């Protein structure tokens, strides 16, 4: 059952659907393996449905709790899915370097470059070296997350007479003001089971983008500058100053690492509020209390840039999923082509939890104002950078970096933390 009836709603580029109908894939099976489960899976399927409906291909979508492990096993053992969707560029890089992925068509990289906001950033993101060291474009970005957001409750701000800060400096001043008023400015929760620590890496990355030029950021993620470069240490320090200040964070610094990131926004909605601001990616709204209306009961603002560094513009940190071909087939190629169509994006946009940097997609299709606003931030970004920890090798980005963040909020000096992470990085070279 298609979610939106073809031809009925003007927000959608239905021409794409008719175009797609020309591709005949009857009898073909396309296996897709992705990270989405639960509601997300339903959303993803709503997009896939259009492809199978139009082309006649059968789509087998599956996912798993330990999908990273599973994809390694399946590709290594020689029974990969046609399309593997992964949110970790690092993992894709690893698979590509072992020759387990198929590069996308020639034109695809160009398409991204031309049609995506901050196109080159996205192309770089999806380009990896294969077994023989030859670079190729492997990962098609589809579905982005915006990370540079600060969530707040407008009415709390109103009552207390706070203004949304436009610059980092203003934000700092607001922070102190809230403390002076007897409130707590921030809710920070780094807990995430085995992945505990990752929310802090987002903080650091956002700070990096606001204090350093994008190429420094890129060098950092590639370890072309050491992790304990003063630029990085400075970013760590800025974050540590917030997170380890008992007055700044709800529950005090001890609670930072122990609070689950899913629970941490809930402090915004407590009565009286436990905190006033929460920096987290766009997805976090699904962990808000039931019935919360975005834009009314809760809203967000763009994590402001540092006024002292106007040359950096409005950098945006984001994440997203990359579609790769793990087992080549006609259907797989056709599917990648489908992803290039605005329609594929619009279907999901019209629902929830989906942002796209694709400029040709109809912005009116966004299901609500909040999404639209986020979409604008994404498309208008002067710089878009993918989550740095996802770009680093897994041992660092999903290991040492996380651990380092926990040490950092535990009170370890930023320089030592950075040195430790660099040491781990050296060990895997």
């Amino acid at each position, binding site marked *: 059952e298609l979610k939106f009836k073809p031809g009925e709603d003007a927000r959608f580029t239905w021409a794409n659907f008719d175009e797609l109908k020309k591709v005949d894939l009857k009898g073909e099976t396309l296996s897709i*393996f992705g*990270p*989405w*489960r*639960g*509601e*997300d*899976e339903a959303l993803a399927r709503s997009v896939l449905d259009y492809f199978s409906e139009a082309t006649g291909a059968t789509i*087998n979508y*599956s*996912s*798993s*709790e*330990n999908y990273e*492990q*599973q994809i390694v*096993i*399946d590709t*290594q*053992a*020689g*029974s990969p899915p046609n399309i593997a969707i992964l949110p970790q560029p690092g993992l894709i890089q690893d698979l590509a370097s072992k020759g387990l992925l198929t590069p996308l068509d020639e034109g695809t990289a160009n398409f991204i470059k031309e049609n995506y906001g901050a196109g080159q950033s996205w192309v770089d993101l999806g380009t990896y070296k294969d077994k023989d060291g030859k670079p190729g474009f492997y990962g098609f970005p589809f579905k982005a997350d915006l990370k540079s957001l600060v969530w707040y409750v407008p*009415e*709390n701000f109103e*009552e*207390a007479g706070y203004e949304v800060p436009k610059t980092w400096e203003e934000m700092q001043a607001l922070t102190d003001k809230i403390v002076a008023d*007897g*409130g707590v400015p921030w809710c920070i929760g780094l807990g*995430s*089971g085995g992945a505990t620590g990752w929310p802090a890496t987002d903080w650091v990355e956002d700070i990096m983008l606001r204090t350093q030029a994008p190429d420094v950021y890129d060098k950092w993620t590639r370890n072309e500058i050491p992790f304990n470069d003063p630029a990085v240490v400075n970013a760590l320090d800025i974050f540590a100053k917030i997170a380890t200040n008992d007055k700044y964070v709800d529950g005090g610094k001890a609670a930072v690492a122990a609070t689950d990131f*899913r*629970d941490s926004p*809930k402090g915004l*909605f407590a*009565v*009286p*509020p436990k905190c006033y601001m929460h920096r987290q990616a766009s*997805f976090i709204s*699904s*962990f808000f*209390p*039931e019935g919360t209306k975005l834009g*009314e009961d809760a809203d967000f603002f763009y994590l402001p840039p540092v006024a002292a560094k106007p040359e950096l513009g409005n950098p945006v940190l984001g994440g997203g999923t990359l579609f790769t071909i793990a087992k080549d087939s006609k259907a797989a190629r056709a599917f990648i082509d489908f992803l290039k169509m605005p329609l594929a994006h619009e279907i999901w946009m019209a629902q929830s939890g989906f942002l796209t940097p694709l400029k040709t997609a109809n912005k009116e299709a966004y299901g609500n104002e909040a999404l639209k606003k986020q979409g604008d931030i994404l498309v208008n970004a002067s710089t878009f950078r993918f989550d740095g920890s996802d770009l680093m090798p897994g041992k660092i980005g999903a290991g040492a970096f996380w651990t380092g963040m926990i040490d950092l909020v535990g009170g370890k000096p930023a320089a030592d933390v950075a040195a430790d992470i660099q040491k781990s990085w050296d060990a895997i070279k």
Partner: protein
Amino acid sequence: MASSRGKSVIGRFGVHIAVLVFVAIWTIPTLGILVSSLRDKDQLIVSGWWTALSTSSQTEAGRTDAADKQVEKDGKFLIMGNLFGAGDARTVTAFGTKAQQPTQFEAGTAADLGEGVTLQVNDDGSYVMSSPKAFEITRGQRVYFSASAPPRFTTDNYRTVLFSEGIGRSFINSLTVTIPATIIPILIAAYAAYALAWMRFPGRALLIAVIIGLLVVPLQMSLIPLLKLYNGVGLFFGVPAKTYLGIWLAHTGFGLPFAIYLLRSYIAGLPREIMESARIDGASDFEIFVKIVLPLSFPVLASFAIFQFLWVWNDLLVAMVFLGSGSDQLVLTGKLNALLGSRGGDWEILTTSAFVTIIVPLIVFFSLQRYFVRGLLAGSVKGG
């Protein structure tokens, strides 16, 4: 030792207490999650689950109706309504209009909001906001109040899990995987264990050593080589690589070392005279095994069956790798796992599915427990 063997009252009482303590320690975590899975998702992070049954006083926010609901009466504009939805029997003790001072006013009193606007909230949640001028607000006024909340429970989570589409199918798939994957290793292991305990053949000691050594092989190590093998075999015979047979054998392989180890140690302890007697009666090893050893090993077979059943039933990894994840092969754990949000949150689904999956293993446990009979060997031989 029946309790009759004269234990003092205190002693008997002590045993009950001790068991009660153990049971409590072992049950409390689970109980917590059971209660939690029935609780309202938002209440959960506010108060401990053990308070779920008691009425709690909570400070919350509500909202009055907006201007479009106002009525004019005696020259005053009134917005009236109730902060609680229908049927919500709570009592407001105090209220306020500022988040920082949520309990500024007693229930039933009128708060002055300035410009002649007053708001009165009564203890039943009803409110009257009056103003000399017409209201223009598009959203209602936020009202903070402290209310005693009776326990709130919901079965929504269970409904979500139990009535999700395809759950019946995956249930059957799970059984199709689990039953043979439990019985086959028992059979194979029992035969091997008997041979290793009571038959003489060269290499017996070595085999025992190997089996014990293999106990430690981490399952994950085997997955890639095995899947390669499966793919190879599948390709060679032109059959699908992922079949029920494949997963049965995989579970069998992973369960065998423990099964053999456990069964062997038990079977080796059976009284030798019984075997000898059967041997003189002319029974071959096969007959001794089937007619004497198997029935006498029921307790240990039942224990192993329970464990193997649990492992297979709760397994997701092996099923995903060797059976695939298409909807017609998806096992129950896979199905429930798919209900979870991709960000690993949705603990309410997680706890609920934990309870849903427990049910079948518990039935198995209860039905096999009666085979843990005391004194199966009683009366067979005398001696010390």
